[in-house]
């Protein structure tokens, strides 16, 4: 399965928007945090988990999705949200804790919910798996055509929820695609130290579903393999497990000193940036001219700047708004 030119350019654009977005968020996050790095300070407080380097996993999968399809994302959700089509302004307002944010400032960066495009994320490892199975069940029971994608990190494949959810989706033959973003680190603990198998994709066999490992952090390869899995789901052939090799170019969160990384690893990852590689590919293949690429990049930056400016200019919630929205 190959992307059309339009799909390729869409993927590049979303990857660039995502990267520029993380850069802008990182800059805003550091405001008010120097020289005292106190997480509580600045316009964007709390923990901040950036997705730099993981963009191919978002676009290669979401290129196949429609609004009715559900995505459950992780604590590192920005790239997935952008690729799923979450409203960037409302998302940014949420991250800045503003009243017009997706959750009116109640959720924050780990709890982005956009009902318009069926996107949700959560802060604890493996939490989105069950809800993705449930979204697929709901679509099936209502005889609707949507499918569900559950994103997790490779560390989550050692959670009970992973195994239980795969089994449940398989035994009920539900249209779910389980996507593992393998950035090889669960905070400071390597995949090698935490995981009994080299590739989590082999675990699919235990639940009678296809499983595949996609190396290279390449959006085109991910597009192909994810496309086949999503096609299977749409055709009623049940769930698939995909593990995508990727790279965490930022730390676990902003401020992570990453002393646990082997020397040279970070430099090697940065030298192998998927956006740079995809950009070269597009030009070499004649998919786009340098000028066309630059236009995409300029537009991406403008879109990000606009979202950040929107969030900054938006109103704070009233303090007592904290007490509302507990119940429907």
């Amino acid at each position, binding site marked *: 399965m190959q992307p059309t030119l339009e799909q390729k350019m869409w993927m590049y654009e979303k990857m660039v928007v995502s990267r520029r977005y993380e850069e802008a968020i990182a800059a805003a996050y550091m405001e008010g945090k*120097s*020289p*005292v*790095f106190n997480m509580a300070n600045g316009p964007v407080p709390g923990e901040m988990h950036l997705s730099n380097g993981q963009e191919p996993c978002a676009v290669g999968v979401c290129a196949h999705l429609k609004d009715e399809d559900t995505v459950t994302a992780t604590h590192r959700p920005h790239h997935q949200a952008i690729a799923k089509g979450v409203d960037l302004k409302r998302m940014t307002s949420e991250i800045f804790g503003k009243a017009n944010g997706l959750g009116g400032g109640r959720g924050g960066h780990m709890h982005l919910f956009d009902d318009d495009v069926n996107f949700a994320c959560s802060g604890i490892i493996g939490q989105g798996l069950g809800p993705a199975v449930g979204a697929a069940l709901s679509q099936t029971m209502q005889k609707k055509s949507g499918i569900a994608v559950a994103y997790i990190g490779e560390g989550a494949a050692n959670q009970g929820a992973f195994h239980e959810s795969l089994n449940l989706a398989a035994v009920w033959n539900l249209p779910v695609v389980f996507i593992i973003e393998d950035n090889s680190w669960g905070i400071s603990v390597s995949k090698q130290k935490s995981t009994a198998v080299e590739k989590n994709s082999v675990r699919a066999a235990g639940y009678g579903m296809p499983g595949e490992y996609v190396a290279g952090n390449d959006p085109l390869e991910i597009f192909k393999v994810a496309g086949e899995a999503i096609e299977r789901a749409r055709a009623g052939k049940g769930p698939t497990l995909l593990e995508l090799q990727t790279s965490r170019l930022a730390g676990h969160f902003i*401020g*992570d*000193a990453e002393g646990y990384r082997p020397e040279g690893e970070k430099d090697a990852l940065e030298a192998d940036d998927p956006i740079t590689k995809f950009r070269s590919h597009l030009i070499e293949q004649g998919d786009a001219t340098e000028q066309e690429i630059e236009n995409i990049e300029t537009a991406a930056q403008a879109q990000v700047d606009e979202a950040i400016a929107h969030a900054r200019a938006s109103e704070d919630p009233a303090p007592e708004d904290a007490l509302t929205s507990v119940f429907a």
Partner: protein
Amino acid sequence: MSIDVIIPDDLWEEDNEGVITSWLVSDGATVEVGTLVAEVMVEKIQCEVESPAAGTIKITKEEDDVVNKGDVIAHIEA
């Protein structure tokens, strides 16, 4: 004799500022060579400052004070 407790040049890599987050001795405490006396945070990393001498410590920089490499943060009266 008074010996300065100085933020060492190699306490952290970059040339940015740090902040004293905790004094681990009270002002006027008796310290030995190598006694851990303070924690300095640089970005999100905590660095340890040790006493260069034995004696009584006289603290000159407070918690939350911004410090640079080479700054004197206390004196040790031998």
